[in-house]
């Protein structure tokens, strides 16, 4: 006697037929462009309705950006902000990566620094602005310090995770081959950590843009963050928007370049298997 679990009725209910999906790439491009276009349109319409200087539309923003470019103001601001980010970033990586590696490798070092990492994770770079100004003055160094602070955290955290990601059997295999501690470290641990180091660097760069804006909001003569705040104070909303647009584009560009560069130079370290 065959075993039954459910009634005929249930079985006869039709199942859902899934339609065949259209080619994904096409769809993504179309949908993405469509929604961007829709957004820009809505933005323009909304700004025309509001009709105050406080809500510029896309056209006004682009116009302001072009003017700024022609005046040379925009390029100057971009370069200054980029310089601050660049120097702070390199310094942060130069300190953060070795420290992270050391922390991953030697437990005492990790225990020593860990409470501070967990603690200052919640303290943004900008909270250090006052002390930074006291130590480094209101010049470039204090802002570069904030970028350094932002970078070093993310790089440290990710590097530490990377070191612990080395698989036990990878280490054991190296031991079977007679590798000594130094060889194991350089030829197994370091390469295995690379993807995480790169991720940390990428995240740090993204966050550095935020930090530089923060620093420039308070005490600055030039820079993208300064441009945004200065425009706001003069109620030049279109210049402010132009500054924000530039900031976003800069971030996207930097991220893209970083990824392209990593793929070019460090492709093998990006493989995960």
């Amino acid at each position, binding site marked *: 006697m065959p*075993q039954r679990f459910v009634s005929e009725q249930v079985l006869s209910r039709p199942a859902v037929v899934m339609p065949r999906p259209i080619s994904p790439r096409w769809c993504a491009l179309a949908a993405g462009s469509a929604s961007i276009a829709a957004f820009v349109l809505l933005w323009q319409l909304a700004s025309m309705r509001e009709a105050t200087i406080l809500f510029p539309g896309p056209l006004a923003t682009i116009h302001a950006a072009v003017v700024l470019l022609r005046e040379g103001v925009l390029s100057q601001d971009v370069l200054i902000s980029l310089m601050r980010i660049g120097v702070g970033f390199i310094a942060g990586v130069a300190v953060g990566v070795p420290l992270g590696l050391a922390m991953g490798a030697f437990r005492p070092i990790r225990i020593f620094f860990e409470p501070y990492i967990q603690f200052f994770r919640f303290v943004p770079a900008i909270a250090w602005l006052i002390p930074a100004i006291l130590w480094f003055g209101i010049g470039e160094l204090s802002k570069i310090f904030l970028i350094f602070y932002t970078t070093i955290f993310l790089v440290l955290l990710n590097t530490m995770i990377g070191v612990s990601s080395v698989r036990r059997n990878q280490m054991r295999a190296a031991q079977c081959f007679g590798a000594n501690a130094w060889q194991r470290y350089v030829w197994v641990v370091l390469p295995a950590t690379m993807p995480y180091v790169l991720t940390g660097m990428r995240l740090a760069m993204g966050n550095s843009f935020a930090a530089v804006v923060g620093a420039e909001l308070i005490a600055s003569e030039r820079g993208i963050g300064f441009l945004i705040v200065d425009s706001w104070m003069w109620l030049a909303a279109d210049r402010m928007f132009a500054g924000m647009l530039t900031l976003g584009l800069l971030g996207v560009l930097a991220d893209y370049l970083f990824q392209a560069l990593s793929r070019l130079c460090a492709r093998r370290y990006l493989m995960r298997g």
Partner: protein
Amino acid sequence: MSTGGVAAAMSWRNADFQFAPGTPLILKNFSLEIRPGEFFLLLGPSGCGKTTVMNIQAGFEQVVRGEVLADARAVRGPGRDRAVVFQDSDSLYSWLTALENVEFPLRVAGIAKRERREQAHKALRMVGLETHEHKYPSELSGGMKQRTQLARALVLDSPILLMDEPFAALDAQTRTILQDDLVRISMRTKRTILFITHDIAEAITLADRIGVMTAGPESAIKEIFEVTLPRPRRRGSPAFGELYDRIQAILADEVQRALRREDSL
């Protein structure tokens, strides 16, 4: 081998399949008739596309040419008439206990709680897992997870059961036990089973008929063997060994042909 009211046939007629236009054909001119109520084993070397056959029969993929039928109706998507047991137990829901996992299809079908529970209990008892029904998948061994999958696949009484190398990831002892259990269950529930494997011994133990596939790409059925050994089948018996050798010869031949084809490219 009776044709009970619940079992259904599966048919393939001159089917071609490729993943995307321009890519090589995985299956070419694939034809196969599976009789209602039979236990059919699809055997083939690695990479020959046997999992693809199952995915198509289940409705997860579609053929680009030809016909695939289940119970004389064209297969156009997944459905309750074709239950699936996957190779990996990752299809079990990690936030549900074994019992709740088996209840899940009934819940989707809108069955009331009390009846759901009862039916799920029955299914778990049938696969011998009733003492573990309140455990989560992460607390179950590989064999127990596959039993849970089987119970879940049985609970809707689907006329067709599709199994994709469900015992491949298990140790040999567990595999043997589960194979015997599966034979016992199949004799009680009388549904059509399509079982994929690369293990010849497993095929002979379970099957009413075995279809050997050619090596990929452009695979099709090379030869079909009727297995007339009486059940329960003894793996050490001479008849078993003789059938094993015959199938092994065909399979090895296919693997060789594939290697030669690769060399000549």
